[in-house]
């Protein structure tokens, strides 16, 4: 449903947005060329490192160190190599599982808090918002020592919950900012209108409010997933084996053939694999991500 909506609205906006009223073709051409140049610059700046890591992942081990941007000999063996090792496949499984569970939990907690912040009147709202801002600005590395110590004592070290708990926590501030911004825009009167028309409260909620709230929830889920998927600090400090090590931590510990060789191909291939989901999310949900982050920024 959300995908369909994204493409529908995307298509609607794609029509030329502003037409130059000058009537002078040359003026408009000049502006188009200017914007094209700027756009091209942005595309090159953003894409070169991504293309580079893809290129590196396609080089054979013999040519990995030749410094050429485009491979002289192409191969997919780096990809088959990493999927043969338990390190990478279990890391991928850990990454996906931990990020998804953290996302669901963070969105659940944040939805209920954001609903209260956006819709209800209660004392201490500003205190809550201060706590949220405080956590948003918190230096995560400061928690690494105490959590490492505590997790080892209570058996959460190197487990999924050991990462899910900090991920969920540090995803909450952004989730609450973004969701309360979205919830403020929902026309809640519709819920009562539906009840007046004979719907039960549950029906009114499910048929009217849930569809209206969905775009905000999807946006938040995407942003939270990206945060959890990307984390490195906690992943490298609170895990040690394939039990819970996520991909970013696993890549940084990839063993080379010997101690003195860097496994360029493996690192690059793993980097590409872990990048694919976020690139897909960005391409599919660009409008949502932009609106979510800008809404969160303005309101927060």
């Amino acid at each position, binding site marked *: 449903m959300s995908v369909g909506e994204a493409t529908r609205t995307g298509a609607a906006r794609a029509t030329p*947005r502003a037409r130059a009223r000058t009537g002078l073709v040359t003026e408009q051409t000049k502006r188009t060329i200017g914007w094209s140049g700027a756009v091209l610059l942005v595309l090159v700046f953003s894409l070169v490192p991504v293309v580079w890591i893809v290129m590196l992942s396609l080089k054979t081990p013999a040519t990995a160190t030749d410094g050429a941007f485009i491979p002289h000999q192409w191969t997919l063996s780096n990809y088959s190599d990493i999927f043969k090792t338990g390190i990478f496949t279990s890391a991928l499984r850990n990454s996906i599982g931990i990020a998804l569970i953290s996302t669901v939990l963070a969105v659940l907690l944040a939805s209920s808090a954001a609903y209260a912040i956006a819709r209800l009147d209660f004392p201490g709202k500003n205190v809550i918002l201060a706590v949220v801002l405080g956590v948003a600005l918190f*230096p995560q590395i400061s928690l690494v020592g105490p959590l490492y110590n505590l997790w080892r004592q209570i058996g959460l070290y190197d487990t999924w919950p050991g990462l899910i708990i900090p991920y969920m926590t540090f995803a909450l501030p952004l989730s609450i900012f973004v969701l309360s911004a979205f919830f403020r825009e929902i026309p809640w009167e519709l819920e009562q209108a539906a009840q007046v028309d004979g719907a039960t409260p549950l029906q009114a909620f499910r048929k009217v409010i849930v569809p209206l709230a969905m775009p905000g929830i999807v946006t938040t889920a995407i942003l939270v997933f990206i945060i959890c998927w990307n984390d490195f600090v906690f992943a490298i400090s609170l895990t040690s084996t394939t039990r819970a090590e996520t991909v*970013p931590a696993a890549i940084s510990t990839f063993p080379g053939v010997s101690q003195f060789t860097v496994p360029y191909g493996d690192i690059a291939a793993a980097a590409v694999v872990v990048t694919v989901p976020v690139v897909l999310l960005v391409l599919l949900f660009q409008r949502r991500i932009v609106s979510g982050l800008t809404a969160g920024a303005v309101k927060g």
Partner: protein
Amino acid sequence: MTAVAEPAAAAPKPRRRRLTERAREERRLAAMLVAPAAIVMIAVTAYPIIDAVVLSLQRADLRFPSANKFIGLSNYGHVLSAPVWWQDVFHTVIITVISVSIEFVLGMALALVMHRTLVARGLVRSIALIPYAIVAVVAAYSWELAWSLNSGWIPKLLGLTGDPLSHTFGTYVAIIVTEVWKNTPFMALLLLAGLALVPDELLEAAKVDGASAWQRFIRITVPLMKPAILVALLFRTLDAFRIFDTIYIFNQGAQGTESISILNYSTLLNRLNLGLGSAVSVLLFLLVALIAFVFIKGFGAAAAPGGATTR
């Protein structure tokens, strides 16, 4: 964990009762809804930071667990009198100031392109988001392997004969480029939020009055964007100050690039000295709090959380 689902599901059905009853019910519901998130946030941040304070007052070395004892502020004395602490503060400040400044200029340019381009607007917005969304470790590897003389294309492009990552200056350039690349889109998005609030009519009117594009930008756009600029700078400064991933992947702080976070990590997890490491954690926490305080108080309440309720 399953308990949290219940208030979330019950959330959006506030029953309408009699008016006096209603206000009380509303408060009770609000408390129930906010409590889970608030408790999680406070438990997972406040408890460990208090624990860090306690640990920082002890001799707590995991290699010598029997030698644990309360030693007052001597860990702090140890850290603050060590040259490595002050060097790392200096490295962190250098990286933060330079990368956030560049990010601000480029981020403003990117925001303007995303906001105003007549060409390929959707494409620009999508592609520009990629660095923001990409895994930080991947970004760091991509740039490190690009700069390294062993594997990279950049030394070749620049005609360098030595390895840029074998000396301090080259390593700083590479690390700052990585940070700028990764974080400029986020800066741009925060600024874009501000740009969207500048009314077009105002810019049109100024244009009619003969203001140049630069004048319109400096005199109208920037002042109206001030709150967004402050939020963007605050978030990015604090984030840059915590820099860890990029440096860890590049060289774990060799070549004189060790940041406070790297020092913190290596004291805790390589040297397993929880007491000293926690003292570094607490000092970093205080520095971050100080920066946030200076931003919020020094530049007005624009970035304060109260903004959320008034808008």
